[in-house]
């Protein structure tokens, strides 16, 4: 195996280990850790050290060794893992991360600065600081052992069973164990005697026992297996390599590496190149289009058998689509738990006591979305701590608990994922924002914007200056960047606030970026697609002439004619329909000629020259080969509501306010 090929796996696994250790360490800062917790952290450090040694990153081995030694002292009860030690260990975690970053750039030695940093940390861990030489000498030893015995540190786990006839065949299982002991040490042996029959059935010439033990050796797998060559046919041998398995597992994962990693989290996973997944999804998209075409042919052919077959195929393709999109879905919990650290650090920095409450961590969303949402969320959380939560004395005077609360919540809502970041801080000061907005020329001095309109101004670039922040004692740092990032993901962000009681920022994102359940509608000869999840219902079109709204069971429903939106020339059909769409708690109607029903829709991005076209979010190819435009529901909805509001300026209708 080429060791360089396993390097990316090493870095990925190390990052994962560090993250797990971080989570555990953070738990230690709030509550005393159980023996299990300490063991888990220790194992993490141990594995990391082993893998780093395997790849020859001596300086990482030297550093982690001291961390491990410290954790070992905790394990043995010689030291206490209190919040202070946990904080130091967290910093050590960060330091290892930096060292790994250095290693990933191909450096073989740390910079003098990093060495000094590391020694500082080790000192606070209670370890002897290492000089450069001593550090690398210790590491050399580790690496020396490595060179002699690739892929083995720690002990093998061996499970051994023999066939009953082995004794009669002249072989003595004990003999093999004695032989093993000549090139290693058998430890913690357990005799598996559950197959030992009752006295009456016990045939003393048959072998009933098996053995389980740890085998500490530098020998290779081949050598261990070789010891059993004579009884190859009469025994089953289970060999699990020593725990630090990075490189070995990367190559031999299929053969043997699954256990250690999997048992740690209780479920098995396979690492797959995300490009392969993307390729699969693209091809499934093509498949859906092709099946739609085949369906059309089937219907035209008039053969019932053919149609039935196609119905089966369509059902299967739909399941495959669901399944493969599911492959890309990851739980948001991983992203959320990163914020424990952000909150821990920032609250320390600012001297505020803050508790992070997380809910909905099992909510799933597309991996690409998760990756790109982390930064904006970090920003929102930092802002909430920095500007949202008041200082302890202010909180006390307002009768709040001295510990501030930041809440992260996630849930699914009509084809979107909603992520909420809320705090129980001071809230936004409406008057001050209004004054600032007028001063900046963002709104007219005589305007009376609603709370939500006004608060959303915070996402405007004009508000993102430091001065504005201090003046407003509110948010503003880079909120325009947050909004831009979220918009780029076809999401929306909004803000709610109650003065003195807290602020909630709500981020809505589409669940996936590739394939949706679409609802096709026709206007003239064109076909448009609406995401099915955004549709509430379809009703027959009825409205008094000249109005841009109708009554839906007594409620005012603003609507928009798709015909006029896209300036379709063809004459309207006799009976038009209204598709009622919902987004972010608001509803509006879209007037269309025909309702064509539900279809799988593969989203194709629009060419660059169309990116500025409003109300259209993408395109899709139909089974017939025609192109359909996918409507951007939030934009259409916004437009419908604006129009009817503009209309009501002349004919005020107080009921509209309730809808908008």
């Amino acid at each position, binding site marked *: 195996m080429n060791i360089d090929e396993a390097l990316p796996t090493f870095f990925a696994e190390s990052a994962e280990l560090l993250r797990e250790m971080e989570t555990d360490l953070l738990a230690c800062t709030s509550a005393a850790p159980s023996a299990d917790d300490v063991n888990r952290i220790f194992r993490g450090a141990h594995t990391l050290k082993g893998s780093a040694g395997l790849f020859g990153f001596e300086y990482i081995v030297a550093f982690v060794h001291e961390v491990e030694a410290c954790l070992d002292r905790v394990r043995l009860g010689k030291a206490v893992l209190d919040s202070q030690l946990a904080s130091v260990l967290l910093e050590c975690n960060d330091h290892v991360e930096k060292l790994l970053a250095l290693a990933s750039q191909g450096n073989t030695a740390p910079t003098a600065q990093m060495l000094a940093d590391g020694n500082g940390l080790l000192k606070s861990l209670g370890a002897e600081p290492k000089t450069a030489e001593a550090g690398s000498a210790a590491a050399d030893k580790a690496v020396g052992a490595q060179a002699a015995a690739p892929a083995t540190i720690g002990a093998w786990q061996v499970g051994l069973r023999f066939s009953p006839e082995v004794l009669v065949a002249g072989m003595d299982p004990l003999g093999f164990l004695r032989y093993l002991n000549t090139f290693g040490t058998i430890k913690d042996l357990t*005799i598996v*005697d559950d197959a030992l029959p009752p*006295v009456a059935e016990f045939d003393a010439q048959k072998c009933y026992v098996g053995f389980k033990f740890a085998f500490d050796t530098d020998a290779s797998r081949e050598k261990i297996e070789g010891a059993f060559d004579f009884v190859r046919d009469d025994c089953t041998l289970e060999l699990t390599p020593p725990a630090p398995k990075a490189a070995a597992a990367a190559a031999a994962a299929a053969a043997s590496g699954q256990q250690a990693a999997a048992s740690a989290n209780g479920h098995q996973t396979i690492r797959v190149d995300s490009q392969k997944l993307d390729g699969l999804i693209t091809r499934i998209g093509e498949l859906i289009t092709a099946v739609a075409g085949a369906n059309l042919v089937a219907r035209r052919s008039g053969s019932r058998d053919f149609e039935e077959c196609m119905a089966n195929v369509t059902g299967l393709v739909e399941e495959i689509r669901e399944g493969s999109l599911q492959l890309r879905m990851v739980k948001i919990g991983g992203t959320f738990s990163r914020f424990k650290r952000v909150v821990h650090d920032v609250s320390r920095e600012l001297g505020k006591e803050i508790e992070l409450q997380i809910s909905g961590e099992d909510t799933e969303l597309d991996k690409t979305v998760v990756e790109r949402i982390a930064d904006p969320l970090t920003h929102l959380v930092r802002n909430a701590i920095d500007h949202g939560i008041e200082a302890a004395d202010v909180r006390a005077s307002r009768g709040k608990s001295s510990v501030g609360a930041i809440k992260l919540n996630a849930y699914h809502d009509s084809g979107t994922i909603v992520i909420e970041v809320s705090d129980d801080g001071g809230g936004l000061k409406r008057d001050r924002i209004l004054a600032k907005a007028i001063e900046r020329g963002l709104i007219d001095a005589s305007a009376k914007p609603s709370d939500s309109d006004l608060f959303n101004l915070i996402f405007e670039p004009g508000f993102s200056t430091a001065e504005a922040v201090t003046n407003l004692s509110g948010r503003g740092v880079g909120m325009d960047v947050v909004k831009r990032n979220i918009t780029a993901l076809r999401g929306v962000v909004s803000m709610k606030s109650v003065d003195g009681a807290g602020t909630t920022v709500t981020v809505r994102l589409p669940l996936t970026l590739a394939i949706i359940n679409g609802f096709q509608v026709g206007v003239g000869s064109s076909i448009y697609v609406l995401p099915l999840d955004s549709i509430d219902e379809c009703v027959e079109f009825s409205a008094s002439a000249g109005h841009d709204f109708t009554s839906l069971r007594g409620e005012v429903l603003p609507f928009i004619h798709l015909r006029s939106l896209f300036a379709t020339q063809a004459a309207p059909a006799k009976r038009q329909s209204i598709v009622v769409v919902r987004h972010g708690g608001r509803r509006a109607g879209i007037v269309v000629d025909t309702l064509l029903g539900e279809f799988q829709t593969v989203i194709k991005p629009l060419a660059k020259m169309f990116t500025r076209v409003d109300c259209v979010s993408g395109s899709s190819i139909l089974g017939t080969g025609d192109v359909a435009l996918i409507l951007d529901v939030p934009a259409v909805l916004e437009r419908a509501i604006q129009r009817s509001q503009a209309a009501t300026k002349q004919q005020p209708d107080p009921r509209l306010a309730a809808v908008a």
Partner: protein
Amino acid sequence: MEFQIESRAGTVSVCGDMTVYAAAELKTALLAELAAGNTCLDLSQVQEFDTSGLQLVLLLNRELRGALKIVACSPGVRATLELMNVKLLSEAA
């Protein structure tokens, strides 16, 4: 006959080999001693000790619900029992 058995004051002494060749007879003999109330084993005169011997010891111990005591053993047997992590040796042995 590759072994001899003597019992005195609750202790069964085995002299010879405890291997597969004698296992069947050993089983019968030892179980008979057990039924007679002899629940301690003296293995100090045992030369060869293989898996079948080990199994017999385990079987006797199971019959006695874990009360079997090995009061003495030869160096070879001791090494095997230690390797096997079998903790039946009485402290005096």
